[in-house]
């Protein structure tokens, strides 16, 4: 061994000497064979050495080589070329695009491992970082809507720092999380949003929003986002990826000349969709004016009365300023990238803002020929001033303001709050005579603010033990510390839960002011170790990876609460009355330990077999009979265009059919659900009693079984491509915590039961209709159709998440046989013949006081349609988001109707007789009494106040929305030549959420009534008290030094 090593070094030295002797500089220009345009960034390497460079922005390269050496030119998406160095010192190269382009597109399959998409056997879609960056969106998740088939993104609101939820394919888990796993450079990172129920006030998760933490990632650091859909992803990543995985690869430094990139963005946000408010009738009740109510059931305004669009009037132009700076540099041994981003955003509503700072360093070094190490470190600082939403939030406050009064006039001359009605400690929801806060006053005086410091670091070590055997170790730490401040002014009617009041809602006035603060420390550590062997046996290429992964996550929320301010409006817990102070501490610790094996087998480039196995131990099931579970997955791919008769076909360049099957085990959504917990009591003698939710030592893991069939085609050398998937998921043994008969000993209980079936169809089409030197046009179309059905709930009739019971009697409930995205609401009481029952004393329809199936939020299909044009130095990119079908609960409209604000109450003077039969005891007889009671809504406000909830679910909502459009102009080289500072420069203008054409009567059907931390089927499609996503127009420039 030693001898051979010595010999090796001798030879190496000789070669080196020889090289040094005859070296000469080879230069040249690399262009595209298709259109002759220069190709920057092409890798130029001397074969068999570490020497290499890249072409510059003009496609020009320069490399030292000696005659006889072979220069290898390679570029993603192009056919590589090799040239042997001869006497010529100028070698120009024209690279052709690769007919089987897919061969070269690497995808990240798991734990940072790149693989060839050609060999994948399950659906994978990649979005390039540029596509995300150009939208300039604060929460990059929002840029994925329409760009990935099968992904549904719902933004909670249009406020700065709003959370967004993303669901890949359907909702497989009725009681757990359906969020995909987020992986950055092979390391799991947190996407947790604070759950309001973990605060000392044990809130109901709908008053406030908390940013989902993946939104911290600076979009400018993203190289690619690879979306692994469905259970196949989980087979590698474990139960936390049972909702799929989103794998982010960050930008790294490249070998070659160093660059400095600076870009900025100035954004202007405007609100442009509003609910329609009537301005005919003023404040009062039953047609008469009243000094004790705020409802608009009073007499009509006198002609000429000035009225105001108060909601519009409180809106402002939101500003965004982004500054990004990145340094890149490196050589073949070491590369690094350093990036900084500062982002300041204000919203369309007053006061709110979100300020973000991100600093990221990443470096790679080849320590030896066998050992490569890379590491990254990312620091974030986020300051988010929020506004409350829902019942007593800013938006409803603005809607409720009297239309003959200017909402902007909210202070008395002495600076105190101007009231419409006398201050009262009653609760808005139960008392219609309460004075809603002025929205501007609310925004300034009711404070909700989160400050986060976060650090993500990771290391990646790769060791090539032999030519066929690689060892790889990855480890990462993600720590986020958030300090939250919630402050309700002592003059405010806004309310929230109070621990002093058995967690019932109470208002600022009733309590003398509330402070509900928290500190959240979220630490996620994970590491993996893999041994990967790659060997060719005859016609078989094999890859076998065996490894282990350990995950340790902990989250600790310390809440502290106090009421009754001593000094008005002094925002500190020390200002609350000591006897009202309460504190809470919630620690969540979760660990996983898994063994993973992955086998890849390729036969003659025609057949691919992928199989994985993962055995996972979950701490969340520790204490049960089964604390571990096994996932198998197997996939088969058949590239039929490799068959002799079909190979090199000029039309069908590439064709593959694939099938995969995977099973996933899943643990409960949270730890400590095995043994029931005790709650401290305030009754005489104190002590402990069981909490309302019973835990269960008999829990078993959920089981999802997913079958995926797909096909991939490339026509005309990749000018037209299609990726088609059909999937079916059966999710059994659902772990959920339904309400149950008290005979269980509890009011809710964690149980296994129920089954959900999902199936869907996804198509992703790519096309390049025009491709020439000066003009190109690319099209991307993503089609998604998905259905989810609740097969059973284990014998229970209904399951709902109480957080989604946002307003009135409408909630996200599922029933056996219903859709997983069902909306349940109270409907009309009817007799056995189905006729509407009318109250015989009032003539107004009666509610059935029963939650029934009332709507389905699942669209029939959705389409993302992207177009990308380049004309010389101009670049135009835009994306449409199209949705067909799906129901939305228009809670704002229900509120406005009950409050006399809706334009539908303009018919109040017209007497009507509601068709139906009287509930007079004869309703189920052969001759029910037909209703002939005339109602004049103007004098019988109950006609509106008793509106039937189900009427406010709007069905089959369609929309076409221009999600984003970017026009950029690259300054021509002729111009840049005159100076030596900038290598390239471009300017751009971008607009997001530009317009929407929809049949929805409210402002925006694409909102979430709770926030992204809600489990199960969530409250997407519940439109109540949240500000819609505004239109943002931004412009900026990008320069490279």
């Amino acid at each position, binding site marked *: 061994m030693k001898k051979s090593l010595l010999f090796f070094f001798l030879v190496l030295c000789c070669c080196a000497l020889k090289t040094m002797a005859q070296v000469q500089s080879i230069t040249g220009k690399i262009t595209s064979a298709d259109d002759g345009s220069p190709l920057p960034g092409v890798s130029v390497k001397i074969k068999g050495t570490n020497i290499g460079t890249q072409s510059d922005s003009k496609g020009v390269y320069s490399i030292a080589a000696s005659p006889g050496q072979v220069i290898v030119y390679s570029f993603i998406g192009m056919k590589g070329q090799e040239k042997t160095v001869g006497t010529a010192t100028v070698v120009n190269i024209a690279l052709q695009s690769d007919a089987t382009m897919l061969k070269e597109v690497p995808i990240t399959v798991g734990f940072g491992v790149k693989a060839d998409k050609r060999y994948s056997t399950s659906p994978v879609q990649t979005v390039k970082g540029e596509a995300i960056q150009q939208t300039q969106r604060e929460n990059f998740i929002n840029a994925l809507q329409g760009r990935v088939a099968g992904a549904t993104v719902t933004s909670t609101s249009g406020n700065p720092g709003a959370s967004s939820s993303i669901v890949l394919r359907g909702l497989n888990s009725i009681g757990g999380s359906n969020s995909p796993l987020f992986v950055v450079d092979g390391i799991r990172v947190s996407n947790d949003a604070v759950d309001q129920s973990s605060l000392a006030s044990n809130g109901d998760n709908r008053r406030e929003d908390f940013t989902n933490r993946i939104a911290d990632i600076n979009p400018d650091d993203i190289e690619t986002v690879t979306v692994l859909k469905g259970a196949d992803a989980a087979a590698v990543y474990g139960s936390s990826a049972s909702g799929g995985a989103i794998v982010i690869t960050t930008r790294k430094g490249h070998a070659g000349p160093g660059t400095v990139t600076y870009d900025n963005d100035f954004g202007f946000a405007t609100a442009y969709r509003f609910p329609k408010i009537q301005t005919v009738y003023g404040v009062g009740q039953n047609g008469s004016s009243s000094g004790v109510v705020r409802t608009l059931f009073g007499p009509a305004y006198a002609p000429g009365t000035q009225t105001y669009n108060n909601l519009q009037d409180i809106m402002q132009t939101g500003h965004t300023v982004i500054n990004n700076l990145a340094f890149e540099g490196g050589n073949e041994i070491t590369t690094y990238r350093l990036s900084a981003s500062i982002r300041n955003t204000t919203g369309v509503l007053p006061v709110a803002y979100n300020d973000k700072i991100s600093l990221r360093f990443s470096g790679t070094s080849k320590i030896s020929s066998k050992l490569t190490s890379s590491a990254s470190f990312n620091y974030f600082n986020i300051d988010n001033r929020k506004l409350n939403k829902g019942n007593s939030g800013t938006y409803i406050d603005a809607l409720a303001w009297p239309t003959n009064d200017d909402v902007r006039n909210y202070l008395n001359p002495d600076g105190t709050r101007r009231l419409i009605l006398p201050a009262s400690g009653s609760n808005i929801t139960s008392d219609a005579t309460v004075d809603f806060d002025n929205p501007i006053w609310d925004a300034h005086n009711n404070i909700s603010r989160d400050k986060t410091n976060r650090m993500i670091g990771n290391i990646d070590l790769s060791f090539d*033990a032999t030519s066929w*055997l690689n*060892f790889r170790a990855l480890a990462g730490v993600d720590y986020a510390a958030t300090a939250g401040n919630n402050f309700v002014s002592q003059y405010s009617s806004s309310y929230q839960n109070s621990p002093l009041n058995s967690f019932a809602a109470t208002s600022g006035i009733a309590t003398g002011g509330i402070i509900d603060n928290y500190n959240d420390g979220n630490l996620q550590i994970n590491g993996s*170790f893999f*041994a990967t062997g790659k060997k060719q046996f005859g016609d078989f290429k094999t890859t076998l990876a065996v*490894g*282990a992964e*350990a995950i340790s996550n902990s989250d600790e929320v310390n809440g502290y609460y106090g009421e009754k301010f001593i000094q008005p409006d002094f925002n500190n817990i020390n200002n609350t009355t000591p006897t009202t102070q309460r504190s809470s*501490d*919630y*620690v969540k*610790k*979760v*660990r*996983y*330990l898994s*063994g993973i094996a992955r086998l890849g087998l390729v036969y003659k480039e025609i057949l691919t077999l992928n199989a994985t196995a993962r*055995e996972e*131990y979950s*701490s969340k*099931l*520790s*204490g049960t009979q089964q*604390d571990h579970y096994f996932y198998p997955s197997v996939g088969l791919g058949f590239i039929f265009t490799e068959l002799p008769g079909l190979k090199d076909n000029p039309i069908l360049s590439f064709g593959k059919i694939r099938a995969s099957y995977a099973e996933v085990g899943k643990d409960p959504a949270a*730890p*400590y659900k095995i*043994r*029931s*917990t*005790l*709650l401290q*009591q*305030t*009754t*005489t*003698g*104190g*002590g402990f*009693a*069981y*909490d*309302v939710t*019973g835990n*269960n030592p008999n829990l078993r893991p959920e089981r999802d079984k997913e079958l995926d069939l797909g096909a991939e085609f490339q026509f005309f050398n990749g000018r037209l491509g299609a990726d088609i998937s059909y999937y079916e998921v059966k999710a059994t043994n659902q772990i959920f915590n339904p*309400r*149950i*008969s*008290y*005979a*269980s*000993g*509890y*009011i809710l209980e964690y*149980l296994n*039961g129920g089954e959900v079936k999902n199936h869907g169809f996804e198509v992703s089409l790519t096309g390049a209709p025009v491709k020439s030197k000066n003009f190109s046009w690319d099209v991307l179309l993503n089609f998604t159709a998905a259905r989810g059905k609740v097969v059973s709930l284990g*014998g*229970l*009739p209904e399951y709902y998440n109480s957080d989604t019971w946002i307003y009135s009697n409408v909630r996200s409930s599922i029933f056996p046989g219903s859709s997983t995205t069902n909306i349940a609401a109270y409907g009309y009481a009817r007799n056995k013949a189905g006729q509407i029952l009318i109250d015989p004393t009032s003539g107004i329809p009666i509610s059935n006081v*029963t939650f029934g199936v009332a709507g389905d939020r699942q669209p029939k299909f959705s389409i993302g349609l992207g177009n990308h044009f380049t004309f010389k130095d101009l670049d135009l990119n835009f994306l449409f988001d199209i949705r067909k079908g799906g129901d939305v609960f228009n809670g704002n409209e229900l509120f406005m109707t009950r409050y006399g604000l809706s334009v539908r109450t303009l018919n109040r003077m017209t007497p009507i007789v509601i068709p139906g039969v009287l509930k007079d*005891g004869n309703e189920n007889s052969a001759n029910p009494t037909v209703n002939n009671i005339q109602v004049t809504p103007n004098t019988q406000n109950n006609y509106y106040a008793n509106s039937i909830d189900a009427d406010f679910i709007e069905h089959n909502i369609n929309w076409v929305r221009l999600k984003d459009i970017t026009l950029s102009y690259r300054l021509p080289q002729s111009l840049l030549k005159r100076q030596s500072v900038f290598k390239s420069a471009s300017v751009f203008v971008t607009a997001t959420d530009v317009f929407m054409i929809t049949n929805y009567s409210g402002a925006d059907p694409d909102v979430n009534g709770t926030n992204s931390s809600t489990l199960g089927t969530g409250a997407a499609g519940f439109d109540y008290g949240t500000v819609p996503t505004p239109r943002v127009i931004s412009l900026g420039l990008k320069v490279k030094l």
Partner: protein
Amino acid sequence: MKSFKYSILTMLVLFSASSCKKYIDVNTNPNAPVTADASALLPPIQAGMARGVWYDSRYIGQYAQVWGSATANNVWDEEGYLPASDSNGEMWRTVYFSLGQNITLLWQDAIPKKKWDYVAVGYALRAWGFQTGGDLYDHMIVKEAFDPTRLTFDYDDGSVVYAEVVKDCQLALNYMNLAIKTDNQTISPTLAKGDYMYYGDRSKWIKFIYAILAQNALHLSNKASFNADNVKKYADSSFVSNADNASVECKGSQSGDSNFWGPSRGNIGPYKQSDFIVRLLDGRIFTGSTTQDTTLDPRIKQLISQSKDKVYRGVIGTNGDPNASDATTLIPYLFGNGVTSYPTATPNAQRYIYNDNSRGVLMTYGEVQFFKAEALFKKGDLSGAYAAYINGVNASLDFVSNPPQAASLTGTQRFISAAAIAAYMSGPCVKQSAADLTLADIMQQKFISLFVWGSLEAWADERRYNYDTNIFQGFSKPGTLYPDNGGKQVYVVRPRYNSEYIWNVPALKSFGALDPDYHTKKPWFILP
């Protein structure tokens, strides 16, 4: 090669099941305990009992015409119910949630540590829960209750519930005797730590268990198998004075530990004394007089309230308070004469059991004496019945004179003088000889003794006699019955809506509990 070996070794270590288990064994909740000492579990269980009685007494008190609503045609005054509501479903929560698994957990602590008195108390409270619940609901879930593997639960009929009470009482007695045998203590300091009913006095617990048995035996009075001697036997082993009464302490320091009827909780306002109780206390029923005499019964000033014009008025049937808008003649709060808003001054001492720290009364000596009186009367033992009747009336006067507060099982207030008591006992409202005694005397003196705290028992009595107005002479059958009743009076309470009517529907259907007139169905215990 070495590194390869090490990695294989590392992986093997990682995969060994035992180390996996150790690594993931972090599922013990650090935020809340999952076990507790029996003494920490008992206080909330006992508080839950008082709560169940208080909450449901609001509605049952209207059924029984202990009180009524100020507004006419109140649904409960009409002997109806609120659909899709948990109103009048509190005892269901008490039995299954407050007592339920908490008693099981209490046993899990007490049995291995041989704290037999706690084991006994657990059984006694289960027995009390099924007796009280069984009388309200008739059908209950007994055999399948608390099974963590079940999603739905089948019901058992009243006979099973009643048998369960006897079984639990027997076990309670066995364990209490074992406790006494083990350490020879009458008052157990261990039990006292968590016992806010009897403060560890085991002999009083035994008396309470016998009181439940007496109630269980008496309530079967309509059955051929009824055994009056059993009632006498159990009653004789039960309470011997008001100092033995079963009641739960209320500290009255904040909302959570205050009596439901106290001014802080402010729940008593909507409930106006009934015409029935007014006429019992002003002598019109017992003496047959047509005019109100407020001097006859010294309890009248303690139990009920005068309008501002010094007249005692009560709600008749479904009439509500016809003078509700007249400040002079409206029926005031039970807190005191003329009081129409919740007292807020501190200390806000009120009379009777309307204080923040008044104990939550469950069963009394007087009540048990009336059990005995009724049983013996039915048997024909008039002298025995009379003696018990006199004891009962005396006990009631004593109870009203000295209502229990805070940690004292009997009060020392002496609101009623010995002379007044003696006058009443020899007066026209009390029968002076066994020969004159009627069932109506027993049942109506019992009705007075149960006032406010014992509405559940009062309603059970009325149902046993099918609302017979010869016995309950002040009971006024509602002029308007709830539409779903189909003209029938109320006999049973529906199981809690949000527990059963949504989550356990098929089980309800099996015995007709989904019928609109289900609440008029007679329960098993009153059937012959």
